Structure formats: C-alpha cells, structure tokens
C-alpha cells in the first residue's frame, strides 16, 4: 500500500511539473501576444510615446538628467548624417539599443518622469552636447566604442560623439 502511495505521490509530482511546464510555455505564448499588441499601439501613437519607452527601459534607474541625456542621444542621431532620419528608424535600427533587442522596451511602462525627460530633450536641452553614443562602462561593450570622443558621464552612462 505504501508503495502505491509513493507511486501516486510521484505521479502527482510529475503531473505538477508537467502543469508547471505548460504554465511556463503558456506564459511565454502570452507574453509574445502582449508584445505584438503593444507594438501595434505604439505604432499608432506618437514618437514621444516610443521615446519615453526607450528612456524607461534604458535609463529608468538613472537620475533625471541622465534620462534627458538618453532621449537627447536619440534626437542627435535623428539630426545626424550618420544615422537614419526619424525617431522610430533610429530606435528600431536592429541591435542599436539593448532594450529593443531584449524586449525590455515593452516590459516597462514609462513614468511621468520619463515623459518629462523626453519633453525637455525635445525642447532642446541636451546635457550631452550632441553625443551619438552612450554605454554603461561597467558592462562589456564592443571595443570600437571606446574610440569615440567621450563628452561626459552622467550616472552610470558614458556619453560620446
């Protein structure tokens, strides 16, 4: 009898693992659907929304001016000959921003502070003086990026032209 109980327990355990696994699979599916839904919404909404999302994902934990700076870098790229001409094109350039590659840009809802930072950048404040690149020096980055001319460091980001 005890053997039967043990087997039943084992069976339930396996079943539980199975259910959990389904759960994991299921939630993957779910999040994939959410991504497309968000994408559609943002495609219709303005560039400000998209930029605020990028700021939230790339610099959400940074001080306020660090957030303005990240938004300013995107705008500097739009203005530059070295990058595409529109905010969406710059943000969606494949592999240009880590948060677009790993989906973090869709995982966070921008706060009012993020929006304010974007607006200040759009209104002309640029703490980076025309910088086109930023990176976290404490993480691994491509070596070529260190050849750029560094303008300043704000919070945990280095900004460079």
């Amino acid at each position: 009898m005890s053997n039967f109980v043990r087997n039943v327990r084992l069976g339930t355990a396996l079943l539980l693992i199975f259910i959990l696994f389904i759960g994991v699979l299921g939630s993957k599916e779910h999040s994939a659907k959410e991504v497309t839904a968000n994408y559609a919404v943002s495609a219709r909404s303005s560039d400000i929304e998209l930029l605020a999302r990028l700021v939230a994902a790339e610099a959400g934990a940074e001080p306020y001016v660090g957030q303005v700076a990240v938004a300013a870098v995107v705008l500097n790229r739009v203005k530059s000959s070295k990058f595409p001409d529109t905010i969406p094109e710059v943000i969606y350039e494949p592999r240009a921003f880590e948060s677009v590659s790993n989906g973090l840009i869709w995982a966070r809802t921008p706060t009012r502070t993020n929006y304010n930072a974007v607006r200040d950048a759009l209104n002309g404040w640029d703490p980076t003086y025309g910088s086109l690149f930023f990176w976290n020096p404490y993480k691994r980055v491509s070596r070529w990026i260190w050849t750029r001319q560094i303008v300043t460091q704000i919070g945990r980001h280095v900004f460079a032209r």
Partner: protein
Amino acid sequence: MKGEGELKSRYIFWALGILVLALIAVGIWSMSSRAYSAENLLEASYQKAFYNLLDEVNTVNILLSKSLVTSSDSQRIMLLTSIWHEAEKARSSLASLPLGSRDMTNLQKFFAQLGDFCNTLAKKVSFNETITEREWNILKQFKKNTQNLNRYLRELADDVARGRVNWEKGSFAQGMSRRVGQVMADKFVAIDQRLKEEAPTITYDGPFSDHVEEIKPKAISGRAITEQDAVEIGRKFIDNPQKVRYDVSVTARTRGLIHAYTLNFTRAGTDNIEIVMDVSRQGGHVIWFLNSRDVKQQKIDIEAAVDKAKKFIEARGYKNMEATGSLRENNSLTVTFAYKQGDVLIYPDFVKVKVALDNGEIIGFDALGYLTNHTTRKIPEFKISQEQVRETFSRRLDVRRIRKVVIPDEAMKERFCYEVDANLEDERYLIYINAQNGREEQVLKVVETDRGTMTM
C-alpha cells in the same frame, strides 16, 4: 489483492511518465521549430534590405553618370533630385540591417552627404546658377566612390547567393557555427572602413556638410574659472523663491562644444539631485540648468509666466531679448527668447526658459544656442524694401506683420530676411524673403494648439 493494486499503480505511473515525456518532447520540438522559422523570417527580411541596398547603390551609380554627361539643365535637376531620393532610400535600407552594434557611421554619412550634396546642386541649377569646377569634381569623386561601393557589395552578394554567408547563425544550413554568422556584419564593417579612406571630407551649402560639425562657440570669453568659482556662479544664478538650502558640488567635467563643470544641487540633508547645471570653464557662463522637482497644479497664467521668464534672463545679463514662442506641457511653460539688434530679430541667438506654473519659479534654462552663435552682426543694407515685400504677398495672402530677422539656413549660415507673417484664410504661415536678392528662403506653417505655438 495487494499485488494487483501495485501492478495497477505501476501501470498508471508508467503511462503518466511516458505521456509527460512525450508532451515535453512535443513542446521542445514546437518551440525550437518556431524559433527556427522566426530566425529564417528575420534572415529573409535582412536579406531583402541587403538586396534593396544593392539595387539603390546601382541606381545611384547610373544616375550619377547620367547627371555628369547630360547637357540639359532641367534633365540635370531631375537626375540630381532622383539621386537624393535614392540615397535616402539606401540610408533606410542600411538602417534595417542588423548592424546597430557596429560602427557603420561612414556608410550612412556617405549616403547622407551624397544625397544632400546633389539636392543642394539641384537647387543651385534651378536658380540658374552655374556649377563650379570644384562641385563637378566632388560629383566625380562621388561617382568613383559609388562605383567602388557597388563592386564591394556585388562581391558580397555573390557569396550570399551561394549560401556561404548570412546574418543570423544557422539559418540557411543547420550546423553552421556562430562565427560564420557574423561574417556578413564583419564584411560590412570592412566596406565601411574602406569607404572612410576613399571618401574625402567635403564642404558645401547643406546641413550634412563637414563644416557644420566644426562650429566654434562665438560668445564664450573671459578667463578660466575654478570649481569653487563655478559653485558660486551656480548658486547665484538659479531662481530660488522658496529659499531652499542646497548642497552644491562639481560632479563632472564635460568636454562638449563648450567645456564645462557639471554641478549637482541636492537639497541639504538629502541625496536627491534636484538641479543639474553646466557652467563653462572659460568665462563661467551658465550654459544650461534643469530643476527636476515635481510641479503642482497651475496657479499663474501664461502671460505672467512669460513675464517672469523675461525678468529672470534680464537680471542675468541677457538684455534686448524678445519672446518668440512658448509651449505649455503639463504644468510648465517653455519660453524661447531671441536677441534683437536694432530692429532686426536674430533667431540663432536664442535662450530657452522653463517656468513652473505652480509658483512661477524658473526650473530650466538653456543658452547653448546663444553662447554658440551670439556676436554683434554687421547688418547689411536691405536691398528690398518692406513695401515691395508687402505688395508681392498682399495679393494672395492676408499679411499681418513684416519684420526684419536673421535666420540660419540649412548649412548654419546666417541670412538676413524679411519675415512675413500672413494668413491664407484661417491658416497662418511664416515666409522668409532674402533681403539681398528677394529669394524665398523658407516657408513655415504655424500650428496653434492649446499648448502653444509650433511651426512646421
């Protein structure tokens, strides 16, 4: 009895076990096959962008040759304009390739300058100006560069067609190593570097000309200041109606267009950075500051806010400034001021002031434009009279105001103009007429929103 139960339970156990394993296997298989097809889809879209790029470079190449040999000016205008469009398309295709983590700025810049230069040239021809020897040479140089680029890309395309290289690992042939997948990006970087060596720096009258990047600030003067000086200057500069006690410290030395000390203002006793400010190391000019405090409900009206902003900059030495526009966002107002020399409004010499609408405190200031451009201009004689300008427009438009202004053109050169503020029915426009030759430099459409006035 016991044996039968055991047998039964063992049977159930095995059946469940096999079922679970089968389902896991199916799950993994479906996931990997979905990932595999997604990878292929991605690869296909990258390849499509790549072939588009190939096509566009080829078209630019042909158009360039034609624009060099044609004898007709109207034909040349059309060809040059087409090159501009095609080059812009090439920029877009290039931006769709997975090269964002690489330094591909030379290729982008090449297409931008090529298109921009051809557009400027087309404008010149349309104004019946002759193309100079130097400009012909630049055009020829562009043709040579494009020809080479075309060749490099074709070589790469041959490899792609044979299935030798791709963007994503393991998409075409399974079992390819990750290293092979990176070949495509590496080859592009090599092409980018080659182009950097081949293409010269060029200056012309367009926004992407190389000289635009080398602007030196005009209004920075005085001796070098110390960090302590910077803190003193910063403390005196900010608007502080609530008499908040701040701890101020220099946190960075920035090396932008104007070298500066960055100051952080924290409320005494807290770690919260409330104000950040840049003070120039030469002369101690405040370049910009931003106060990130939370702004409460609006209590003062727009007019009072604009007045506060004007008094703020006047008290800090910015005299003869005229408010040219404002934008309200949430509970703050950003006002732009431009310098006025005599009766001429100098748009490039601008400062921006952000006013909190809850108590009228100045929570933002930006003088980078002013400090970069401001100098005393020699105002030339306006060869066209205001009456002449009014006459041309009053036939079709309802002219509200005409004034003398200086605007920056696309290449950041300054133009003396008449600014015609006029209505076509209920739509408002700003039209800029060159005061020297009567040429129309710019047309802006004014959009009045509840947030403020914007131009497009």
